[in-house]
C-alpha cells in the first residue's frame, strides 16, 4: 500500500555492502507520477515557505516591535541595507503567491478525489493550513506599522469582534488591551515570528507524515496497477531544489522591479484613512458587508466557519471509493458553486473598493 518503500530486502548480495553506506534516505522511492505537471504545487509551497522563513528571519534581525520605531526599522531594512528591498519583496510576494498555490493545491486534490480513503488525514491536515496562514497575514500586516497595516488591522479586529461570545475576548487577547499599540504590536510580532511558525512546522510535519504513511494518491482510475517508481534522492530532491531556485530568483526579480509597498507611518489619530481590502480577502469582506447589523456574524463567522468545516469533513461526507471526476458530479458541482460565489463576491468587492471613486 505504502508508496514510500524501503527496500531492505531483495537486493543483489554483491551490491549490498556498497548500498549500505548510502543511507536510508537514498532508498526512499516515490511513484513516478509524483512529478507530473499538476503535482508541483506542494513542492512550490514548501519552497515558498522556506523563502518566507529565510527572509523573515533576516527581517526580524533588523526589527523592533515598537510603534513608530517599527516603521523606521522596516524603512531602514528596505532602503539602507543592500538587498533589503529584495528580501522584503520576496517575503511579500511569497505569501501572496503561497495563497494562490495553496488554492490550486487544494483544488487539485478536490477534483481528483485525493481526499478519499486512506488519505483523509492528509486532507484534513491540509485544510488546517487554511486556518493558520490567514493568521500569519493578520499578524504580519501590522508589523511595518504603516497606515495600511494599522488600519487594516483595526478593520480585522472589528470583524473578529463581531463573532458572538468569544469575539470581543479574542480581540482583547490579541491586542493585550483596549489599544492597538505597543502591546498589540509585540503580541502580533511574537505570534508571527515564533508561535505561528511553530504551529506551521508542526502542521507541515503532520501533513508530510500522513503523506508518507498513507501514500500519494495514484491515478483516479484505480491504484491496483503497479506504478513506476523513482528514487526520492536525487530525482525528487533535485526537482524541489530547482523549484526553490526558480521561485527564489523569480520572486527576487519581481521584488527588485516592483518594490514591496511601505506606506506612510501609522497615525492612529488619522481617521481619514480608509484601508482597501487585499485581494485574497475581498470575498470575505464582501460577505461581511452583505449582512448588516446583528446579522454581520453570518458573514464574518457562520458562513466562513461552515465552509471550513464542510471542507474538513469532505472525506467523511463523500465516502465512495470512486475518484474519477466524471463520476463525482455532485461534489464537483458543489465546489464549483462555492468557487463561483467566491469569484462573484471578489469581483463585487473589487468594483466597490477599487473601481468606484472614493466617496
Amino acid at each position, binding site marked *: 500500500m505504502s508508496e514510500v518503500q524501503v527496500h531492505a530486502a531483495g537486493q543483489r548480495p554483491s551490491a549490498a555492502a556498497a548500498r549500505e553506506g548510502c543511507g536510508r534516505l537514498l532508498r526512499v522511492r516515490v511513484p513516478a507520477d509524483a512529478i507530473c505537471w499538476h503535482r508541483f504545487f506542494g513542492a512550490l509551497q514548501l519552497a515558498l515557505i522556506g523563502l518566507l522563513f529565510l527572509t523573515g528571519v533576516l527581517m526580524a534581525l533588523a526589527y523592533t516591535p515598537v510603534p513608530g520605531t517599527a516603521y523606521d526599522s522596516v524603512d531602514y531594512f528596505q532602503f539602507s541595507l543592500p538587498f533589503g528591498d529584495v528580501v522584503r519583496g520576496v517575503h511579500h510576494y511569497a505569501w501572496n503567491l503561497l495563497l494562490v498555490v495553496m488554492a490550486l493545491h487544494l483544488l487539485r486534490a478536490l477534483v481528483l478525489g485525493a481526499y478519499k480513503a486512506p488519505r483523509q488525514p492528509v486532507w484534513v491536515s491540509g485544510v488546517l493550513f487554511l486556518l493558520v496562514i490567514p493568521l500569519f497575514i493578520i499578524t504580519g500586516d501590522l508589523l511595518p506599522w504603516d497606515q495600511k497595516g494599522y488600519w487594516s488591522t483595526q478593520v480585522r479586529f472589528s470583524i473578529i469582534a463581531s463573532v458572538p461570545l468569544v469575539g470581543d475576548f479574542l480581540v482583547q487577547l490579541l491586542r493585550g488591551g483596549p489599544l492597538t499599540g505597543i502591546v498589540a504590536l509585540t503580541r502580533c510580532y511574537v505570534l508571527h515570528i515564533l508561535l505561528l511558525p511553530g504551529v506551521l512546522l508542526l502542521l507541515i510535519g503532520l501533513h508530510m507524515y500522513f503523506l508518507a504513511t498513507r501514500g500519494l494518491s495514484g491515478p483516479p482510475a484505480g491504484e491496483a496497477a503497479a506504478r513506476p517508481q*523513482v528514487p526520492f534522492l536525487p530525482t525528487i530532491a533535485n526537482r524541489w531544489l530547482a523549484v526553490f531556485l526558480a521561485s527564489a530568483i523569480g520572486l527576487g526579480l519581481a521584488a527588485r522591479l516592483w518594490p514591496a509597498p511601505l506606506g506612510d507611518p501609522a497615525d492612529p489619530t488619522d481617521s481619514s484613512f480608509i484601508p482597501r481590502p487585499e485581494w485574497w480577502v475581498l470575498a470575505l469582506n464582501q460577505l461581511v458587508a452583505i449582512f448588516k447589523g446583528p446579522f454581520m456574524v453570518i458573514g464574518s463567522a457562520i458562513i466562513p466557519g461552515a465552509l471550513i468545516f464542510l471542507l474538513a469533513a469532505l472525506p467523511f461526507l463523500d465516502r465512495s471509493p470512486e475518484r474519477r471526476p466524471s463520476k463525482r458530479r455532485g461534489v464537483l458541482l458543489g465546489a464549483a458553486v462555492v468557487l463561483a460565489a467566491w469569484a462573484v463576491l471578489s469581483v463585487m468587492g473589487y468594483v466597490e473598493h477599487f473601481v468606484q471613486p472614493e466617496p
Partner: protein
Amino acid sequence: MADTCRTAEGKAAAEDAPCLSRRSFIATSALAGGVVVLAAIPIVSTVVLPAPRTGVGKWVDFGRADQLTPTDFSMLSYEFMVKDGWQDLPQRGFVWARADDKGGVQVFSSTCSHLACNVIWNKEKGLFLCPCHSGMFDANGLPAGGPPRKPLTLLPHKIVEGKLMVHITL
C-alpha cells in the same frame, strides 16, 4: 487528465540502483550549492556587512576649560545623539579631566582598562578606583593595583575659544 504522469526521467530513474551515481551527486550538489549561494547573498548583505562598522568619533564641547584645577579631577558628563541602526538614541557617559602643570589639560576616559566598568576618582587616596574588580589607577592613569595591566586611555582634546573639546568615540 493524465492517468499517470510518466516522464522519461522517471522511467530511467526507476531502474537506478538506490545509490547516488556520480552524475546525480554532482547535479544535487550543484542545485544545493545554488540554494546556499542564493541564501548567502542576503545573509551577508543584511546581517554580516552592516556589523563591522566602527563607531564614529565626535568632538564634544565641555564648556570652559579654565574651570579645571590641577589638584583634582572633574567629572565631565556628556550626552549626544548617535545613529544606532535605524534610530537616533542618546548616548551618555563621562570623562575625567584636570589641568596639568604645563598649562594644558589631561582628559582620561572613565572606562577601566580591565573589563570596561566606570572608574571613579577618589580624592583622598589620589586614585581612580574601579568598583567592579577593585582595579586602581594613579593620577597619571597608570595601573596602581588590582587586575588592570594597561593604563587608562588618554582622550584627544583641544581648546577652542576657551572651551574644552574632547574627541569621544563610541
